[in-house]
């Protein structure tokens, strides 16, 4: 599977239009940053792509097959979803939690096999949490928990991964770790969409940025092209210091733009 696409997506919640005609394409091997102010529709778009919301209009498809036509477990194998601030409801061990990512691969009467255990081991290794395998998930720090949750999403080994604010609330080192794991997965061939608020993180780790405002995509392209002064002022309402350093762009918000 190499292409996840959404066509002409419109969706309203209680009369308020949250997505007002969105077209979106994701290819294998790229990491796309979904950015925009709060309430722009980023999370809703991600949930539509994941099949969690059936949009009022438009269609999401994987290589031409509508995801609504896929069986639930087939969709689970194709698209992995990392929820925002995800937690575990029970105090299972880290290994058990990451193993839940294999559920779409299990047969009705077949438990996890060697292939599933290998996938879990790879995911634990990729996120550098193998040493925590036997730790109950309620005894993890915030940074550890974020990496464990990411490992759970990676364990699916789906061609597409949709991550909703995976670095929110993380200190800079942990945020960089998480983005590095996602970038590595993209280089290995997966298509990744990541919702990010930190524009510097978005600029430096994403191949392409998609800027949303009021349910529409208002800019799309390379980080340098999207994060220009006019978009920052018009969409975010800020003046920011922008530039490049050590092989990537940075954005430092300085003040509110007047007249917004």
């Amino acid at each position, binding site marked *: 599977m190499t292409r996840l696409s959404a066509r002409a997506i419109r969706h309203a919640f209680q009369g308020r239009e949250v997505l007002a005609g969105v077209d979106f394409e994701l290819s294998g091997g790229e990491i796309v940053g979904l950015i925009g102010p709060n309430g722009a529709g980023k999370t809703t778009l991600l*949930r539509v792509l*994941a*099949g*969690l919301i059936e949009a009022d209009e438009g269609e999401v498809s994987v290589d031409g097959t509508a995801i609504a036509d896929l*069986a*639930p*477990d*087939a*969709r*689970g*194998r194709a*698209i*992995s*979803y990392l*929820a925002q601030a*995800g*937690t*575990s*409801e*029970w*105090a*299972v*061990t880290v290994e*058990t*939690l990451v193993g*839940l*990512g294999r*559920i*779409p691969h*299990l047969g009705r009467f077949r438990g996890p096999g060697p292939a599933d255990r290998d996938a879990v081991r790879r995911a634990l290794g990729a996120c550098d949490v193998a040493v925590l395998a036997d730790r*109950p998930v309620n005894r993890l720090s915030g940074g550890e928990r974020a990496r464990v949750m990411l490992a*759970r999403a990676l364990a*699916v080994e789906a061609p597409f991964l949709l991550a909703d604010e995976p670095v929110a609330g993380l200190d800079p080192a942990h945020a960089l770790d998480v983005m590095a794991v996602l970038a590595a997965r993209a280089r290995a061939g997966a298509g990744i969409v990541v919702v990010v608020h930190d524009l510097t993180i978005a600029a430096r780790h994403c191949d392409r940025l998609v800027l949303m405002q009021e349910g529409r995509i208002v800019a799309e392209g390379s980080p340098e092209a999207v994060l220009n002064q006019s978009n920052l002022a018009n969409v975010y309402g800020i003046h920011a210091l922008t530039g490049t350093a050590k092989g990537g762009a940075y954005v430092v918000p300085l003040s509110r733009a007047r007249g917004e």
Partner: protein
Amino acid sequence: MSRATLTALLAAAVLMLFVASLAVGPAAVGIESLPQLVAGRAGDAARIIIVEVRLPRALLAVLIGGALGLAGAVLQGYLRNPLAEPGLIGVSASGAFGAVLTLYTGIATAFTLALPLGGILGAAAGVLAVQILAGRDTSAFTLILSGIAVTSFAGALTALALNLAPSPFAALEIVFWMMGSLADRSLDHVALAAPFIVLGAGILLTTGRALDALTLGEDTAATLGVDGARLRRRIVAGTALAIGAATAVAGAIGFVGLVVPHLLRPLTGHRPAALLVTSALGGAALTLAADIAVRILSAGAEIKLGVVTALIGAPFFLWLVLSARRRLA
């Protein structure tokens, strides 16, 4: 302790308590009568007491206790709440009301199984109401609210039946029945309840993997291929069949479905699917033990099984509160 070891230990406990249940009672028929019975050398009195008095009780304790433990584990996993119990979706209260109605109207005396049949019809009506109220929404929240609404309404109707009871004796009969008991049940009761309980338990046992996925929340579970609507239908149907039949035959036996999954959860690594079979066995063992305790404790008036399980359950609840307070401190 591995899951296999735990399951084997619980199964052994159920077996031992089952045998003990056949050997304990006010009549002077003890464990020595069991081999005689198997060999066909027991007297008529001993045979009647074991096969017609104690065997139905032991079988019902296993079936009903198992149903309570299993349904409790499933609902706690589904609602991701360690305080959930099988009665939460309204099936116990509506089943009890159906049975009470047969006592109130006197239909219960018309034929042996009138009362449990009334209970099953009541449970079916209650679960239908819950399904209609909860509608097509697939969240656990609407299911809880609908369950609370049906439970309150059935409770109010039961209170009304007590209020309008034709005589104090009739009211007492209703109150005693509602306390929950396995005394004086026959093999007919077993034959009536068993198919519903076995079918309901079979449905509930298929939910393990979906419950595991729900550890990550409803959204993430859905992206792992869990069909929320289908899961909820299975849980409501399985609970209604198993707990409806259990309540219809034995009345309300509280706390088993709450306490057992709670006690076993740390021993099964907190994984919801690992808790299903173990909680069924644990529920069977606890109910057998409580029913044996009832017979040992009852010198004069019979102490009801539901009273004993509540007497065990309430201090356990207290301990839960205290340990939660310690954790938060």
